[in-house]
């Protein structure tokens, strides 16, 4: 168990190092970072001065080492557009993104678990068919299109929800739903499949044999075990949720990291893009690490293996 945790931690550190390398190398994709960071009309002199000032003339390993050393201290350079250090700019927008993504994840779970359980408990029934239909549609719908259709319906036609921005609870509903839809679909199928398996296990039969009501069998005995894979999948999908946030924040002009990063990408504000890629990917690694450790704690069977 201790060895497992140690290995898992070491892997996470290694992957974060890799993440830093990729974030660093992003600006070198086209060969010359000075060229992409400066406006198109820059003169030869400006480019030379810029290169010298940013240390782009040093050998790559030297530059990477400098990038890493600064990154450890939270210094990812100054935003070319905002003239401020990029990390605080991103940190200031993190709560908005967290609010959105956590709401979306909760929404997905809250909808998917009952739907999946109902479908599994009534396998082959109309409810099952309906749940699977919803899941299949939810898996195939482009979330940004759903977002626009929701805006058209709830904001423009009925005027019950605000079209964009961040404010009260009403502002969160549509963006969170748009991010949640694909995950909800995935989780519904997952819960259904695992529940169907769990419901055939011996201890569930025993529960029924004891004369427990079906509701008690399903919710108290079967559900807890069916939820274990759910934890892993939700954790693994965190990166996907963050990706969804980038698109959906842009649609709703939700003032989070996603919208900010998207603007930085379009403005070629690479210190911000680097910082944002590094932070978001590191967050994904840490979440997955937490989930793996949580998993060991949740399911004692894994500790042995």
């Amino acid at each position, binding site marked *: 168990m201790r060895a497992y945790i140690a290995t898992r931690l070491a892997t996470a550190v290694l992957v974060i190092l890799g993440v830093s390398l*990729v974030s660093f190398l992003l600006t070198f994709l086209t060969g010359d970072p000075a060229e992409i960071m400066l406006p198109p009309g820059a003169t030869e002199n400006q480019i030379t001065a810029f290169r010298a000032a940013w240390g782009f003339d040093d050998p790559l390993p030297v530059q990477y080492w400098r990038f890493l050393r600064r990154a450890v201290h939270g210094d990812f350079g100054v935003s070319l557009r905002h003239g401020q250090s990029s990390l605080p700019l991103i940190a200031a927008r993190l709560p908005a993104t967290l609010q959105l993504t956590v709401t979306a994840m909760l929404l997905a779970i809250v909808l998917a678990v009952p739907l999946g359980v109902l479908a599994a408990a009534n396998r082959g029934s109309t409810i099952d068919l309906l749940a699977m239909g919803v899941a299949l549609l939810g898996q195939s719908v482009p979330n940004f*299109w759903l977002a626009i259709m929701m805006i058209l319906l709830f904001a423009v036609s009925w005027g019950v929800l605000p079209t964009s921005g961040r404010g009260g609870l009403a502002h969160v509903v549509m963006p969170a739903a748009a991010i949640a839809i694909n995950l909800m679909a995935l989780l519904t199928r997952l819960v259904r499949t695992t529940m169907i398996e769990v419901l055939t296990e011996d201890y569930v039969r025993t529960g029924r044999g004891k004369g427990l009501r079906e509701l008690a069998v399903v919710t108290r005995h079967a559900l807890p075990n069916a939820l274990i894979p759910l934890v892993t999948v939700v954790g693994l999908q965190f990166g*996907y949720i*963050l990706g969804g946030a980038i698109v959906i924040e842009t649609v709703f002009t939700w003032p989070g990291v996603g919208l900010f990063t998207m603007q930085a*990408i379009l403005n070629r504000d690479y210190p911000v893009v680097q910082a944002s890629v590094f932070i978001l990917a590191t967050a994904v690694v840490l979440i997955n690490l937490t989930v793996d450790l949580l998993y060991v704690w949740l399911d004692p069977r894994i500790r042995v293996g």
Partner: protein
Amino acid sequence: MIRAHLWSSFRLVRRSPLAGVGALIVGLVMVAALAAPLLVTSDPIDQDLTVVLRPPFWMEDGSVRHPLGTDHLGRDVYSRLVYGARISLTISVLAALLGAAAGVAAGLVAGYLGGWVDTVIMRIVDLNLAFPLILLALAVVALLGASLRNLVIVMAITTWMIYARVVRGLTLALREQELVQAIRALGAHDTRIIARHVLPNVLPAVMVIWTLEVARVILMESALSFLGLGVPPPTPTWGRMLAEGRDYLVVAGWISIFPGIAIMVTVLGINFLGDGLRDLLDPRLRQQT
């Protein structure tokens, strides 16, 4: 051979009617993409400012000349949709193929050789999985430029890991099989063993993943295009049509509604097909995909 193919397609449709529906949808989209010039009512790029924002034919002021209406530049929505299928299919099929080739190779090598090669490959997989893929794709496409080739490469980078993981797992198991061990003991070359005994056994799984990945890549490509980083204009793409229609949502909702439906129906069809294939070829994959 052909009879065997027909027979297995027949089995697929009989076992899973949804897979049949999926095959039908995918077939239609493929026909649209291939025969686009024959199917359209007007040139998809031609602007005609005398007919801007015309509604679909069943609405008042609509005409069969522009069956699904026109956009803000008077371009025919239906014709743009048909041509848009080309971009979606080309990018997703090519990217999924490229990703599959890279991922299968990586998975075979990692699983078969094991040791440090395995460790290195699997850490790269972990690393790649850590990035929100769309973020990586956006950043790279913004830097390299949004050409068809770049989009295919970038999308492939977001898909190879899935094959690598599954193929590695299967290869690990296959390597331990007595048959493979025996052939190895007889002195067969590793590449020969991989090509003759391992690869054929992982292909059904690869095919299932490939199908489902094509669907995922279509969604991602349309998102990129929606955000302005897809194949550049004037080439019509579903994602950009959707984005362009946003400003006219209230007066001309059809500009955004139809491309969305096209994406959803195509992805749905491919998912139906993928699910059916999975149940037929390799039910064990249910857990992993």
